[in-house]
């Protein structure tokens, strides 16, 4: 049971990390928390399921399309709602925080309500990526679909981390994250980087939603808990730290499952909060957080 739950926790954690990675990238570059992150996940899940079920789009096309839908939403949100404000606020960090929290939280409620109006409150199960007999891993049966989903998630997770560290694209993002104005002086198009980061984050969350849609049938309000978990993870990993998001995600997945066995299954979703409190007490900058230069 223990080893099964560890394996299962790591699998769940991978998907948490996929969501948290985008969130922490947004924070790194824009210094804001996207409170509509769970809805990117929801949109991804619905795009995948509806394209497949209602329009008959094959899976190989529906999955990328879901990612594109999430990325497009991220792009639009950044351009329409986020950009104008940090452009005009300049140095006044506080005003930007205020606006970002209000707008993204409102957006979250809006997207849930709009989706409920459009497709109804139903939940829809997504199709499997591949069918086949399950494999036995550490006492739990893992279906080929789950393995494929896990593989894709890991690929995107590690791929994004790799690109962040070694590509020009990633270097630009990290430059903006470290010092926005210095990056701008050095010729980095800060606005473009911000848009790209938001779109990437939207795409990653949407991918998580699509990949999990077979296990967790998406409904319009499906994003709330994955989002709350990614908030816990980014604090755990250190705000703005991509590696922290990965480790934090895996850690939360495992801790939740351990809590489910040893404490109580019913309160599984609450262990994240306990963890959050512990982090804030012991290591407020998170596992991989850096002290930031002030003033």
């Amino acid at each position: 049971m223990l080893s099964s739950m560890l394996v299962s926790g790591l699998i769940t954690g991978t998907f948490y990390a996929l969501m948290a990675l985008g969130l922490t990238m947004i924070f790194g570059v824009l210094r804001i928390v996207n409170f509509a992150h769970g809805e990117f996940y929801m949109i991804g899940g619905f795009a995948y399921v509806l394209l497949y079920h209602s329009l008959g789009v094959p899976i190989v096309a529906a999955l990328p399309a879901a990612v594109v839908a999430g990325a497009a939403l991220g792009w639009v949100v950044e351009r329409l709602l986020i950009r104008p404000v940090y452009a005009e606020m300049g140095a006044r960090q506080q005003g930007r925080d205020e606006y970002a929290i209000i707008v993204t939280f409102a957006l979250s409620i809006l997207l849930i309500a709009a989706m409920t109006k459009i497709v109804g409150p139903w939940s829809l199960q997504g199709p499997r990526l591949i069918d086949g007999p399950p494999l036995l891993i550490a006492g739990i049966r893992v279906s080929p679909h789950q393995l494929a989903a896990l593989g894709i998630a890991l690929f995107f997770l590690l791929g994004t981390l790799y690109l962040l560290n070694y590509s020009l694209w990633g270097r630009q993002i990290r430059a903006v994250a470290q010092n926005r104005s210095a990056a701008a002086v050095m010729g980095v198009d800060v606005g473009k980087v911000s848009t790209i980061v938001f779109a990437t984050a939207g795409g990653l969350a949407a991918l998580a939603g699509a990949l999990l849609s077979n296990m967790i049938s998406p409904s319009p309000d499906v994003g709330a808990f994955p989002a709350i978990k990614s908030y816990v993870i980014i604090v755990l990993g250190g705000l703005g730290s991509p590696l922290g998001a990965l480790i934090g995600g895996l850690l939360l997945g495992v801790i939740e499952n351990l809590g489910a066995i040893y404490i109580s299954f019913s309160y599984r979703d609450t262990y994240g909060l306990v963890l959050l409190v512990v982090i804030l007490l012991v290591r407020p900058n998170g596992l991989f957080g850096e002290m930031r230069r002030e003033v």
Partner: protein
Amino acid sequence: MLSRLSRLKRLAFTSAMALAIFANAPNGAHSQETFDIGVSTILTPPGSVIQGIQVRQALELIADWQNEQGGVLGKKIKLVVADDQGTTEGGRTVAERLITRDKVSVITGQASSNVVLASLEVAKKYGVPVVNVNGWASGIRTAGVPQVFSPGPYTTRVITATVDTLIALGSKKVFGAFDNTDAGFSLEKEMSKQLKERAPQIQYKSVILDRAAKDYLPVVLQIQAEKPDVVVSELIAPAGYILMNQLYDQGVAPTKDTMFFEMGGMTDNPDFWKNIRGAGKGALAFGHYHPKFDLPAIGVEFRKRFVERYKVEPGRLSFQAADALFVILDAAKRANSTESAALTEALAKTDYLGTRGQITFDKTPGPTFNQWVEVPYAIFQFTAVDQKLDDTTLLKQSNGPLDLKGIVAP
């Protein structure tokens, strides 16, 4: 000084606006020309909207149908639909609003136990009858409110049927999964009680699950370790779907060693097969309706009209809602009145052939008070993926005995 004056003007303007808003309030001018029936049901989350829609469709269909034929006592039937969101506060405020603002003389349509429970006090306080469509919880009956009637399912009935089936299957070890709602808890209690009394040979374990959870793997592994003959689930959608899928994915149930028995009424949801693929094949289900039921003429007619109008088969909730409204109309006819007190009195004496059978209300205080005791039910089995209810194997006819001959191993 100038600005102070302007401020006063602004104040006057604000007050005028506020008054205008109240003056234009959409208050239901109570008309003697119509029979106003309050419908409190789930139109928006967090409650299960699918249920609300099925209830509303049936009620609107019957209202139109009866109005075509001249209505009741020469009055047109008017449904005043309000959204209780399936929440407790929603249930209470909607009931209060329907009675005090819209001046309805009777309320129906409630699709969840907590909403009915929340409206008990209101019904008693204003003396307005409530005909409950889908509140299963025992508390609704044991409260003994004379204005509240239940022609729908109730806890004991579901459990009696389930335990009958478990005994007939010759099970030795049963695992039950219930959700953390009032219905879930009371069903769980009733289940262990009945199994202890009627089938002490059956080893029984159960678990209460969070309906909002998205991953039940720890529980599934626990069930796997127990190796029961039958897994019984009362979880409603979408939690029930997730549990079923995970049981299936882990190879726990339905398998040739372990049957799966669904008693939460999920199987007639329109999205059932959209969420359950292989997990549905071989599953046993308890239902309050089955297309192969021997329906009375009015039930056949209702079904025909429903399919014509909505292009889908009516589910059990639609039948339950239909019977609730028919019972109200019947009471109005017998009372020759649409006043609340007269309706309550007439409802208590109901003896009416509804869409699924002869409806009467029990007078014994306790878990069957004001309840249609003999509310019909079916036990059936899915034998293929995407199978329509019509094609499933019916193991128990509406009022017939349980016959497991047709059962197949998954």
